[in-house]
């Protein structure tokens, strides 16, 4: 896979660069700030751009840069690697896009397997969210949708949590040791209880189900 990288911490940038290369990815370039990344991607296409959040330009320059990149290269995946997993940043990331996008802690993509899996899922169009953050959001539903969320069964909550991590039906089935057919049934139950429109596509409804939690949170801002 072709990747580009922007991170203002030289040590972490170098470390990640080595890991990407060890994993067999082609790193088309690495920069210390967002503007330089935009310039780089102007001439060199990439499948996924990896960005820090707290880097120039500005206090959350990675988000500003990602907005520009999504406009300029709509098909390119975006992976945020940050020192903090905060729902505040997740909201802002999901406002940039709900497809081919990811948000993970810097130290949680430290193996070739996890890093490649994260990049592949993003390239395939999925949302990848740091599991600990997805779990926290789902265990503490807030706002007007709380009632609907409380009506879900424990199993449906498990399924929704794994959906929030961006997993496929087969991935969820493997995690919960059930058949993909059973997962489909649970997902239909979730869509029904959260009153998600049936005319939307499956992928769209999956995202909406996840966003139902997140939006309840954002309403409080």
């Amino acid at each position, binding site marked *: 896979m072709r990747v580009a990288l922007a991170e203002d911490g030289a040590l972490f940038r170098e470390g990640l660069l080595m*890991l990407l290369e060890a994993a067999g990815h082609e790193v088309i370039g690495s920069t210390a700030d967002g503007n330089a990344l935009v310039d780089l991607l102007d001439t060199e296409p990439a499948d996924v751009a990896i960005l820090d959040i707290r880097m120039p330009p500005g206090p959350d320059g990675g988000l500003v840069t990602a907005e520009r990149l999504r406009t300029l290269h709509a098909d390119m995946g975006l992976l945020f690697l940050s020192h903090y997993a905060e729902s505040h940043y997740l909201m802002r990331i999901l406002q940039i896009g709900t497809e081919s996008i990811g948000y993970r802690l810097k130290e949680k993509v430290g193996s070739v397997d996890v890093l490649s899996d994260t990049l592949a899922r993003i390239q395939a169009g999925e949302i990848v969210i740091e599991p600990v953050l997805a779990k926290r959001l789902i265990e503490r539903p807030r706002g007007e949708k709380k009632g609907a969320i409380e009506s879900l069964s424990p199993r449906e909550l498990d399924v929704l949590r794994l959906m929030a991590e961006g997993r496929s039906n087969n991935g969820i089935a493997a995690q919960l040791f059930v058949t993909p057919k059973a997962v489909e049934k649970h997902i239909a139950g979730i869509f029904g209880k959260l009153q998600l429109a049936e005319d939307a596509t499956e992928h769209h409804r999956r995202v909406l189900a996840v966003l139902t939690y997140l939006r309840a949170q954002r309403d409080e801002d």
Partner: protein
Amino acid sequence: MVMCTPAQWPDAPGAAAREQAAANAPTPQPADLGPVGLRQAEHDRWLRRQRLQRRLHDGASLQISALVPQLGVVRKRLSDDEYDLRLSIDDLQDQLHAVLQELREIAREIYPPLLDQAGLGPALCEFANHVAVPLHVVAPAERFCLAVEGAAYFAITDCLALLDARGPPAEVVLRRDGEVLDIVLDGVPARHAVEILNHVRGVGGQVDVVEASGSGRIQVRIPCE
């Protein structure tokens, strides 16, 4: 409504004895900084905390984070039969994650990074995800000065952290009222007003209490430009 400013607040236990002792002792001569000097001293205090937090992020935390992918590179170079070594590296990476989580907690207690980066509203919403009591936050997106944000954040969160998870839900409403940051805490017993006052008196804050049956309302007003 009861009006509580530092001078009017009821005596804490033992205050009378201390007052008597103080009366007998030679009158201390505190350095009078005046309101402007006090505000500057408060600002410096919060600035120091903010810088410590940033240093923790840009220094130690980033250095430790950088070790994780380096270990991943070493792990990749191992041959397939070195299974034990692979497990050891996985374990080391997990330990580094635990250390980083500990540093994140410390950073949050010094000066929350989100408060630094995004202000009171986002920082309090994030806090609502962690605290036991169900909490609703209403806050404007605007920023206030460093000392006001710091004092207000810790006044609110230290107090809410004491509330029972099974208790009534609490609500925090922040708004700007001219040159004042106005904070209303609902569902918080009046006894917590003293702790809140301790946090905000340095930045010229005042605390009012309305006691209702069981839970009450505390209003905090902090001058800001």
